[in-house]
């Protein structure tokens, strides 16, 4: 964090220690179909916890359930423990509201569609603070400016009075991250946070997430199918497929020594791996075309 380090910020003075979440046997049935099947997931405090998988694997469903937004009518069993002591599953809705957005927050894939196009950035950024932290408009605005400095949005005062369409995708994603952190959340779920962004912009968001994790002790759940992003950021990686966790391990081991056949397939489909394989066999792309 270049000009504004988190330590200087008033924002995170009363943060306390990092918080983890323990998911055990999380099972979800909807319309007679099993969508999640005994998912065990340790979201380690102060770490970047990777959750990898392809579309339909249940990775977003798992994170939405941890956040407290499962699909309507879903039958859910298992346990989601916040900080080792508070059971989130089966909690009354008004109580759940003191966690959602207040202790656990989420950043979505496409910032242009996760923001209301007709509300100013100030309104969207301060909504949560006014509800959860009972701040008045002036206090909330002051805090919003600090938050925007934290995520390095240039000219924060001015930015608050503008609307989503006036920002680039990268800037909007920074604002979305600021919004997620506005009520001192200790756990941030980032669901494909860079998939909709260009690589150069993606690099900036990855740096920001890493900074927030290191300097605030923020626990991050990084949900993505992009193993390059995973390899750059995650401390541990859990691989999901068809509603099950197939393999969990430290980042290096999962990327370089995967054990489950599905993980091996996933790693082998990386362009760099295809190339290495060809090189090892002394082939070029042109000569190896038929075996690929």
């Amino acid at each position, binding site marked *: 964090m270049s000009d504004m380090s988190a330590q200087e910020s008033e924002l995170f003075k009363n943060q306390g220690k990092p918080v983890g979440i323990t998911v055990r046997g999380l099972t979800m049935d909807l319309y007679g179909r099993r969508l999640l099947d005994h998912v065990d997931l340790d979201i380690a405090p102060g770490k970047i916890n990777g959750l990898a998988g*392809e*579309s339909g694997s249940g990775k977003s469903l798992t994170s939405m359930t941890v956040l407290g937004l499962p699909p309507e009518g879903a039958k859910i069993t298992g346990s989601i423990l916040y900080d080792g002591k508070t059971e989130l599953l089966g909690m009354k809705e008004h109580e759940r509201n003191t966690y959602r957005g207040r202790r656990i927050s989420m950043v979505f894939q496409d910032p242009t569609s996760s923001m209301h196009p007709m509300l100013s950035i100030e309104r969207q950024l301060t909504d949560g603070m006014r509800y959860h932290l009972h701040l008045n408009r002036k206090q909330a605005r002051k805090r919003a400016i600090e938050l925007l400095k934290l995520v390095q949005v240039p000219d924060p005062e001015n930015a608050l009075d503008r609307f989503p369409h006036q920002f*680039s*995708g*990268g800037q909007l994603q920074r604002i979305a991250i600021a919004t997620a952190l506005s009520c001192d959340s200790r756990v941030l779920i980032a669901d494909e946070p860079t998939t909709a962004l*260009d*690589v*150069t*912009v*993606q*690099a*900036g968001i*990855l*740096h920001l997430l*890493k900074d927030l994790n290191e300097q605030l002790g923020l626990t991050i759940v990084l949900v993505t*199918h*992009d*193993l*390059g*992003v*995973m*390899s*750059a*950021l*995650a*401390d541990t990686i859990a691989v999901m497929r068809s509603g099950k966790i197939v393999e969990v391990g430290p*980042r*290096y*081991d*999962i*990327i*370089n020594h995967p054990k489950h056949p599905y993980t091996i*397939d*996933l*790693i082998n*489909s*990386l*362009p*760099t*791996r*295809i*190339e290495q394989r060809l090189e090892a066999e002394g082939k070029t*792309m042109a000569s190896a*075309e038929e075996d*690929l």
Partner: protein
Amino acid sequence: MGGSVIDRDKDKNVKPLDFRTAADIRSGLHLRDIVVDYTMGGRTVHAVRGVDLDVAPGEVVGLVGESGCGKSTLAKVICGLVEPVAGTAVYDDTPITPLKFRSRPMELRRIQMVFQNPYASLNPRRTVRSQIEEARAISPVPVPSVEELLASVELDASDADKLPHQFSGGQRQRIAIARAMATTPTLLIGDEPIASLDASLQAKTAILMKKAAARSDASLLFISHDLSIVRLIATRIVVMNKGQVVETGPTEEIWNHPREEYTKNLLDAIPVPDGLGHLPAYHGEN
């Protein structure tokens, strides 16, 4: 673009041109000083600002750049879907004219495109067979059967009588590729054809598209923002930024020794999946 065959009956009287005599009578694609402006609400956006681009017969060219750099607009110019403000576009000595109400000239039907979103580019109410048959009908040379075409993209013959919704995204994209190949194109354009696919299918689909093009001697213009995949299949890479070509050269040269700062930054920003936890370099947004 199997859809552009509204009055194909009319063309039946026309003697089919013999396109396939030899590669050397084909001269490929030549774009010179192409300029495209979009006007929106009184404001003009310069999408493409004077681009030269050549694709030789049989060549595989990767066109890379970030969103808004003009790469898709350029693809639309080549297909005649967008009219340039200035510049010339010629394919195999035929000037590329913007598509109006008439069907495209026979020569230009040899340019086919595969779009980003396979959910939107296939007709949901028609079987795979009927969509591929329609494309086969405009081919001036004998084409393999629907089943053979499907086999060439690793789909089953029995898939021919299914509807698009019965397939996954990756399978649909392969159907779109088979449909494009059914016209025996001499230039195949992929406009981000892998961007909406799962990670494990991206490299596979790109390679499949290259193979399909190579099998029928077609050139391939592969447009993508993903340099690591483009590197796998392209022989030459063209880098675009802000409506202009910033650098072009053989793939390995661009990848290992980029000359332009912009290309260097683009390559530096790609995260390397080595499990070591290095963040890619960040040089600010441009």
